[in-house]
């Protein structure tokens, strides 16, 4: 190899450590998968939880996300940022789940009780549960793409370019989605401020 020319793995590692871990996994190092899992298990589950608003379903979908990542290791090419690829898988699974569950009745009581346990008194717990239910309801009422954009922007702290890549649209479309979404949330939650 000529001096100064990096091989594939070095070149990707220089760009992104997550892609390097995927390439190591591809080369047969299972420990790399453990590192990726430790790093992204939380963000993926939390994103899915906020998308589908059901903890058990979110974990089930997250399992599927990481299974797909593992299955795709042999054909993995570090052409995009790892998290973009990861969240695109998660988003597609969440959207499929939402579409399938659209006609089914919601069952959110368990999750709300879990949150409600935090408050010190029964009355405070009820107030807190009602408050969180309103926030969740406001986010749930957003169209799927707006909801995904807000969750990635607000909770995963992704930039416009990355959100655009995950959603498969332009950066200006993402800004427009976010504006509309935040305006809607602001109107719905105005009485709580």
């Amino acid at each position, binding site marked *: 190899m000529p001096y100064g020319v990096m091989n594939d793995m070095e070149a990707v590692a220089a760009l992104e450590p997550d892609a390097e871990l995927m390439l190591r996994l591809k080369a047969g190092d299972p420990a790399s998968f453990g590192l990726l*899992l430790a790093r992204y*298990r*939380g963000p993926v*589950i*939390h994103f899915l*939880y*906020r998308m589908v608003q059901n*903890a058990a379903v*979110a*974990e089930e979908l*997250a*399992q599927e996300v*990481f*299974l797909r990542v*593992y*299955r795709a290791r*042999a054909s993995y090419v570090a052409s995009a940022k790892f998290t973009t690829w990861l969240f695109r898988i998660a988003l597609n699974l969440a959207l499929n789940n939402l579409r399938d569950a659209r006609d089914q009745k919601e069952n959110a009581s368990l*999750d709300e009780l*879990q*949150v409600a346990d935090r408050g010190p008194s029964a009355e405070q717990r009820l107030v807190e549960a009602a*408050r*969180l239910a309103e*926030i*969740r309801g406001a*986010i749930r009422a957003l169209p799927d793409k707006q909801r995904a954009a807000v969750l990635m*922007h*607000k*909770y995963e*702290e992704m*930039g*416009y370019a990355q959100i655009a890549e995950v959603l498969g649209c332009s950066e*200006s479309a993402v*800004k427009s989605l*976010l*504006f509309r979404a*935040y305006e809607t*949330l*602001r109107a719905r*939650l*105005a009485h*709580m*401020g």
Partner: protein
Amino acid sequence: MECPIQARGKKDLLLDYCSHSLNAKATDEVEAHLAVCSQCKAWTDAHMRTWSLLDDWQAAPVSPDFERKLRERIALLEDRPTPWWKAAWQSLTGRALKPALAAALVVVLLLAALLFVRPSHAPAQPTIDADRLEKALDDVDMLRKVDAPADTAASEAM
């Protein structure tokens, strides 16, 4: 600084300000503008309140057995035998033979094109009408039969 709300396509500046993702210089500029623009100030304050409300919604904690379940599913995946066609394809593609396979495919397609696609300017082949041929042969037979008695009679007269 141009008013982000009035200027087309500049609202993201306020959004970035609220999410603390602007650099120090841009932050100072926005803050200077907010001090004189009530419209932007009202928008920013309202957005900050919404932003703060969203902070209250914490995701449920991850189950302690999440990783164990995933490892079990991966183990099941590993135990499953690979289908023969997939193994064959992987062994081929694993040897960096993709360009060779692509070239072979191109050759096959070219051969197929040569075999099945005839050029439109090729001369038309003469066709034989079986009915007309049969009829012509019958006519010849009939003429022979007609001529034969006449020939015999002529030779007898001589």
